[in-house]
Structure formats: structure tokens, C-alpha cells
């Protein structure tokens, strides 16, 4: 049976009317444009923070394309997420240079300190933890990025101090 937006209204409950209006506008202005789906989803995610199924249905209906296509794209690209994010996003670089310099230990330390797995979010929604493939700042490996700020030349014992800087 097809997914109905009506059955999933509760997934939209946490967003404000203003946010949802913004999404509608984004979708409307891009309706019918070839290749618009990915840029639209990128912008919708930047407005809402993540893309629950109900939002994907909204986008699909608005752009007049099958929901399967939208879900197919959301689940394919690592940039898109279907789970909510914490107030601060931690991204641990696991590119080769960071790997050589011990990124795995940094990740394990963060994961055990925050008690979350890769892709997860702490219960108080303070931090979400992700890994990324090479941020291109290999000169200061190993690196993590919290929100937009890069912290380099890390050691497992110094990561807790960095977390303290973010409320």
C-alpha cells in the first residue's frame, strides 16, 4: 500500500508552520525543473535538519515525482539523513591520512564518552556523531569537525576538552 502523508502527520509535528511553508515554497519554485530533486532535498534538509519519511512524501507530491525516487535518493547519498541531529554535529574524519594518524582511536573515544554509535545522537540531543571520508585538511590529521569548526592534531586524551567547548 502506498505511503500516505495523512498517516504520518505526527512526523511533521516538531516543525514550525514557518519551516513547513519554507519547504512548500522551495518545492513549488522547483516543480518541473529537470534535475531539481537533489538541490531541493539539500535545502529542505538545511531548513528542517533531517528528512523524515513524511517530508519526503511532501517533496515527492510537490515535485510530482514518485516517492520511491525521493526515498531512493535520500537513502543513497550520505549527506542526507532520516534521523534527527544533535545541536552540535561532530564529524570524525576517517580519511586515509587521519586513519594513519589514529582516527579510529579518536572515534572510539568519542563514541564511548558520548555513548553513541556512528550516525547516532546523544539522548539530550547535544551531539550527533558521524564519520566522514576525508575533509581535505590532511595537514593537521587527525581531524574532527564540530559544527563548522575544525580541530586538528588530536589525541584521544584531548577530545573531551574540545567537547566541553560546546553546550
Amino acid at each position, binding site marked *: 500500500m502506498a505511503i500516505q502523508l495523512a498517516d504520518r502527520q505526527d512526523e511533521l509535528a516538531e516543525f514550525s508552520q514557518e519551516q513547513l511553508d519554507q519547504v512548500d515554497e522551495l518545492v513549488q519554485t522547483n516543480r518541473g525543473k*529537470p534535475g531539481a530533486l*537533489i538541490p531541493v532535498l539539500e535545502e529542505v534538509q538545511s531548513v528542517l535538519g533531517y528528512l523524515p519519511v513524511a517530508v519526503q512524501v511532501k517533496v515527492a507530491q510537490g515535485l510530482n515525482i514518485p516517492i520511491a525516487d525521493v526515498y*531512493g*535518493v535520500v537513502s543513497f547519498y*550520505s549527506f542526507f539523513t532520516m534521523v534527527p541531529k544533535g545541536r552540535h554535529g561532530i564529524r570524525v574524519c576517517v580519511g586515509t591520512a587521519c586513519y594513519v594518524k589514529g582516527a579510529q582511536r579518536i572515534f572510539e573515544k568519542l563514541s564511548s564518552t558520548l555513548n553513541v554509535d556512528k550516525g547516532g545522537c546523544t539522548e539530550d540531543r547535544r551531539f550527533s556523531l558521524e564519520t566522514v571520508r576525508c575533509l581535505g585538511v590532511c*595537514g593537521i590529521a587527525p581531524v574532527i569537525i564540530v559544527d563548522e569548526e575544525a580541530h586538528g592534531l588530536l589525541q584521544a586524551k584531548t577530545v573531551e576538552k574540545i567537547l566541553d567547548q560546546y553546550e
Partner: protein
Amino acid sequence: MARITIEGLQTIKERVNRENLLRIGEKHREAEKHSLDTTGSYRAHVLVCGGTGCKASHSEAIYDALTQEVKAKGLDKEIKVVETGCNGFCAAGPIMVVYPGGIFYQRIKAEDVPEIITEHMINGNPLERLMFRDPETEKIIPHMQDIPFFGKQKAIALKNRSLIDAEHIDEYIGNDGYRGAAKALKELTPEDVIEEVKKSGLRGRGGAGFPTGMKWTFAHKAKADTKFVLCNADEGDPGAFMDRSVLENDPHSVLEGMIIGGYAIGAHQGYIYCRAEYPLAIKRLTLAIEQAKEYGLLGDNILGSEYSLDIHVYQGAGAFVCGEETALMASIEGRRGMPRPRPPFPANQGLWDKPSVLNNVETYACVPQIIMQGGSWFASIGTERSKGTKVFALTGDVVNVGLVEVPMGTSVREIIFDIGGGIPDGKKIKAAQLGGPSGGCLPEHTLDTPIDFEEITKLGAIMGSGGLIVMDENSCMVDSARFFMEFCQEESCGKCTPCREGTKRMLEILTRICKGKGREGDIQLLEEMAPYVKDSALCGLGQTAPNPVMTTLRYFRNEYEEHIFERKCHAGTCTAMVTYGIDPETCIGCGLCAKKCPQQCITGEKKKPHVIDTEACIKCGVCMESCKFDAVKYV
């Protein structure tokens, strides 16, 4: 700003040249000799590196401090402060270069700024304490061009690095920018352009090394109402940041390359597909496109010619496989980025089924100079079959981490030891990893191989896009093969069975070997599977995924055997096989490790060597991390 013509381009160039005489290449020295009229221009230029690496070590604060201090001292009419793109010598960041002279300052902090201004700018005494020192002789090397890191390099794709402000188009024009495009549009036919590129011997810098001129010929000959010129800036190789640097440093060189390429094949629409993880590169590209449009260097009738081209930036959404051309095009069309079988080749049926040419960032960055200086100039650099230069992102266990551009034919050893400064902490090199997850690990004895597409392939690696990761004697080759296989497995799009299933099974085997559960016959199984995956996968990702396993098996087979038969990982990377112990000679009995140990399995009297109970140890490594005397060792 208004649209400009070729004469306008020349006027801007002359004006900027006068202003920037101090720093543009060799010209500043001539200016000193002939004391050209530079009245009204600044007496000094301070260039702060604003690449992502230096920004991460707070170069923005330095830039702010500089502008404030210059203003406070009333020098803002005399000294020009410029933020440039990535300098390349990331290990020394944050970096500042001062002209005249090209004095190189490294690892500066915002607090150093007042002293630099007072001592260097006012009193005329460059600050020795912030200069580069030769690591062996401790001798101070004040000038950037004399530092060994820059010595063996030759900049073509990176010619404007650490030299111009990437956010101002005039600075680019000042250093011969858009002259290649002007020449192509005014003096050459599309066929001439292609001929020149063919003569240059330029091959694709994205990895496979396909001759660019040939690719352009196919698209040029294809008949269609619409064609596309595309740029691949989806640099996904872990440990590679060449394209990011070019885009941040010199976005206009890529646009200019695309104008020339677009003119050659007859495309009027262009896309640059850039990773979302590179926000600075996207910002600078977008800005560059706006500025180029205002000058009429993009849009309708470029430089007053008949040729028109629009370029858009398309932000990728994080899928390594989108570096593959057909997948990239599918992604621009708004679909899952999955490759399709070829033929039809993109040159005939690419984006939206129209003839399309896709080239890498670095490839485009070379094109303007090929047109300006001629194909035979470019072909005079390099080896017989690999012409020009190649940019490498040199990282890992090497002293001078950074971005280097060397002529083809330079040996891997020269890059690592002469430019890179060797291995830190007096350790020995074990391998050089070339070409990322599609490449291979080259052992010490092969390092004299020259950088050349064919020579590198012979060794089982690939040139790749230019990641060069150095691994010292403490690296585990089995685990590095596992790391790359995990990467390929996660990034496999799942369309074809050999890649989807093959990488998964190979990863399972590698993982169990690293966990100390390797079985007899595992090596043979890997050797049997690797060629199957290589030969039958649909696209480059799957076809090259077994390379790291095959090269490590070829050169480091003994490590696999140790893991499987002796259950030992001498590098200490595979923790399941590691046992921690305390060296009684080094341990002073401070008790810190015992206090930190979550299992409380470290015991010993105060001020006497401690002991780990290996039965209870969970191998978390906290003791090793906390010991201030490096007494905890792998045994």
C-alpha cells in the same frame, strides 16, 4: 563592473601588474632592478594563507589582527594585506609570505602580528624566530623559494598558489588570467584548440589518464543541438585534497579551462560537480562565476566573440561513486548516482543523453597555459608518455605534509624525502600508498620509480588523482588493505554483483584476519577473488577495489602470514592480537596507568615497575595513552 573586451583585459592586467609587481612571480626582482614606476602602489604585500588547513589553525584571526594592526599604525596606504588560497606547505601552517623578497613565516599566531609589523614593516628587520629552519643544519631559510619543500616543485596547475587573492578576478587577470581563453576565442578555431591540447600530451588528472585531446575530439565530432562541458570536483579519495586546493586557490583557472574546453567541443552549458564537504571551494567558485559573468567572461558573447557559455555549480551529496563519469551525470540529473555500462560513451550520450565532456579540476587548470604557451611547451616537461606536472597531496607519516606539484618523471622517493623531508621521529618508511582506495601500497624498494602513468601501473598501483600517503614502519599493511576495502565496500553503489558481493566477501576475510581469526587458505581465497572482481565489475570503483589487497599481498605477504599463522600484528594496529606490557627498565612506578585502568588489572608498588595482568586486560590502550614515560609497550 562592466563587460570587457580583450583590450580591457590587457588594461586590467597592466594596472594590476603595476600594483602587484612586488609579488607576481619573478617580476618583482626585475622591478627592483629597473625600478619601474610603481608610484602610488603599496610598498609591501603581506599574503596570509587562507586555505582550509590554515583556516583550521585560525589563520582568519591572523588576517584580522594584521588588517587592524596595519590600520592602527597608519600603514594601510603602504601595506596591502591579502588572503590567498592554499600555500601547500600545510605542515608549516598558518603561513604568511611578505613581499618584496618573499619572506616566509610559519606557524604564526595572532599575537605575533604586532611584532611582525613593528620589526619587519617599520624597522626593516625580518623576524628570524618565525622563519623556516633547515631541520638538519638548523640554518634559517628566509625566502620561500629557497625552502627545500618548494625547491623541486614546478607549478602549472598551482601557478597562482599563495600569490593571488582568489576572491578577486582582477588579481587572476593580473597574472595572465583569461589570456588563454582570449587567444582561443580570437585566434584559434575549435579544431586548432583540440590540436594544441593533443600536441601537449595532456592526460586526465582524475586517475585513469585518458588523453584529453582525444576525449574532446569525440565530443567535438558528435552532432547534437546541445552539448555539455562538465568538471569533476567530486574529490572523494580519502587523503587527497588537490582539487580542493586548486578550487580554493584559483577558481578562475578552472573556469578558463572550461571556457576553452567548451569552445572546443561546442558546448554552451557547463556544470562543476563539487563535494558538499568543500564549503570554501563552493563559495569561491560561486563568487568567481559571478565576477566572470560581470566581466562578460561567462555568459553570452564571451570577450566580444560569437561564443557563449554558462557554468553552474552543482553540489554533490556525498557518494564516492559519483566520481565515476556516468554516475556523476546521473546525479546531476537528480537520480541515484549509479554508473551505467558504456558504450554509449558520454562524448556521444552523456548528461541528459547529450554529448558531454567531463574533465577533472586539475586537467582544466592546465589548459589555459597550454593554449597560451603552446602544446609543445607542455609536452617538453615530463616523461615520454606522461607530460606536464602532477599535483600530489602528500600526507601520512611524513614531515612536510602538504600539496606538491612536480614534473612527471620525478621519483616517488624524491617527493617523500627531498620535498617531504622524510619520515618523522627517525622512523623507517614501510610503504607509500598511491592512488587511494583504487591504488596500491608500494614498498621501499620501488620508490625510485618515476611518476608516470604506465610505470606506476606496472607496480600494481595507479597514479590516481594524486593522493600520496606515507606509512612508516609502525603501519600494518593487512589493516590498511582492510581499511581501503571497507571504504570501497561502503561506497559500492550495489548495482553490479561483483562489486557489491565481492567487496563484501573480501572485507569479511580481511576483517577476520585482522581480528586474529584468519584461517589457512584465506590468502589463496583473496588471491582467487581479486581478479574476478577486477575483471567483471561494471565501473572503475569495483575494477580497482582489489588493488590495495593485491599490492599488499604482492609486497607484504609475510604480514598476512604472520597474522594468520602466528596470530601476531607486529605494528600493533590489530588490537585483537596485541598484548600490552610494561617495560620494567622505563617504568618509574608513578602508578598513573594503574589509576586509569578501567579493569584495574595493573598492579605494582609505588616507585617500582608495574605489571599488567594480561588475562584481565581488555586492550583498551588507556595505559599506553596515559603513560608519560612511554613505558607501556606492545609485547
